[in-house]
């Protein structure tokens, strides 16, 4: 019986030392209201995760970012199909498609959106359209504040985008 208890105590001690028992996973959802975006007036949104109470409470306790995606409804207001894309950057000074494509990081590219119609990218589907997750994870964990741009192709484009960022992370003491 002593050996049995010792075995259990050793296992439990190891886990406590590793901090494994005091971490948990949380999901944070934050609005990304990009709105109307066109080639002549590109839509952008300043996303400050620190304004999210859950994120601000846990920023010093983040152990890992486990998943990030964007859910979105995209309206294509042009007469031809288009593909929308979301980019992120720490700079909010970009105003052309070329500047964004050259300097920002593409994190989402949608499937084709039919002319004068909309599509919804739901939570489960969102992951298959994500790009450059390592960079996005770093922005979420280490920066917490960045600009989100939306463009589309082909040019000209005229879209309206309502989106939310969904972050699942492990936090603990």
């Amino acid at each position, binding site marked *: 019986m002593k050996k049995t208890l010792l*075995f259990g105590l050793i296992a439990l001690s190891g886990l406590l030392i590793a901090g494994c028992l005091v*971490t948990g996973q949380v*999901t944070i959802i934050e*609005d990304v209201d990009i709105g109307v975006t066109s080639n002549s007036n590109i839509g952008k949104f300043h996303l400050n995760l620190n304004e999210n109470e859950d994120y601000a409470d846990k920023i010093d306790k983040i152990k890992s970012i486990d998943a990030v995606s964007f*859910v979105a*409804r995209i309206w294509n207001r042009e007469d031809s199909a288009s593909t929308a894309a979301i980019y992120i950057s720490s700079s909010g000074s970009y105003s052309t498609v070329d500047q964004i494509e050259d300097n920002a990081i593409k994190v989402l590219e949608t499937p084709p959106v039919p002319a004068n119609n909309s599509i919804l990218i739901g939570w489960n589907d969102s992951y298959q359209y994500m790009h450059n997750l390592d960079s996005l994870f770093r922005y979420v964990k280490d920066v917490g504040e960045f600009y989100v741009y939306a463009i589309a192709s082909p040019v000209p484009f005229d879209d309206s985008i309502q989106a939310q960022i969904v972050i699942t992370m492990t936090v603990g003491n």
Partner: protein
Amino acid sequence: MKVKLPALLILLALSASAYAVSDISVGPFFGMNMPLANKDAKSGTMIGFQAKYSPITLFAVGGHYQGRKYGDPSEEFFYGPDTKDGGSVTSLGIDAYLGKTSGTGVNFYLVGSLGSYKWKRENQGEISKTTYSFGPGLEIVLPMKLGIEGRALFDIAPTGESGSWKALLWFVGVNYHIGLGPM
């Protein structure tokens, strides 16, 4: 030759003794897999198969295969409630038992396991981790060499940076004992 013959005799004696008292059991199990402090998955079912070898009553080693199914997590979005695939986990591992691990009647033991952990979800990449679990088990072994077992396990998959995914696993299993240990 003087040394080899006694050594051979001792080895034969030990082998015969081990055969007489050792217990090998195999069988399937069915249970639940309940994530703890985890917003990325919900509870689901678990099935598996295990084998155990008890060379002596107080100690045993074994192996297992687990197939776990997670339930789909849900969240509220601007377009309404939505879910994503909870996915499934397969785990192949080894087990060490301490306690009364063989013989007919009531057996009670603590078990510690080390396993490979592969989590597959729709639209998300496969995640591979090493998982550690431990907990108590109880088995009632009938004279007909069938054992009914119940076990609870605290399961931890470290994710790096001192974080981890945790789950409570419990199952009920049926084991067939090939040879039984001392009673």
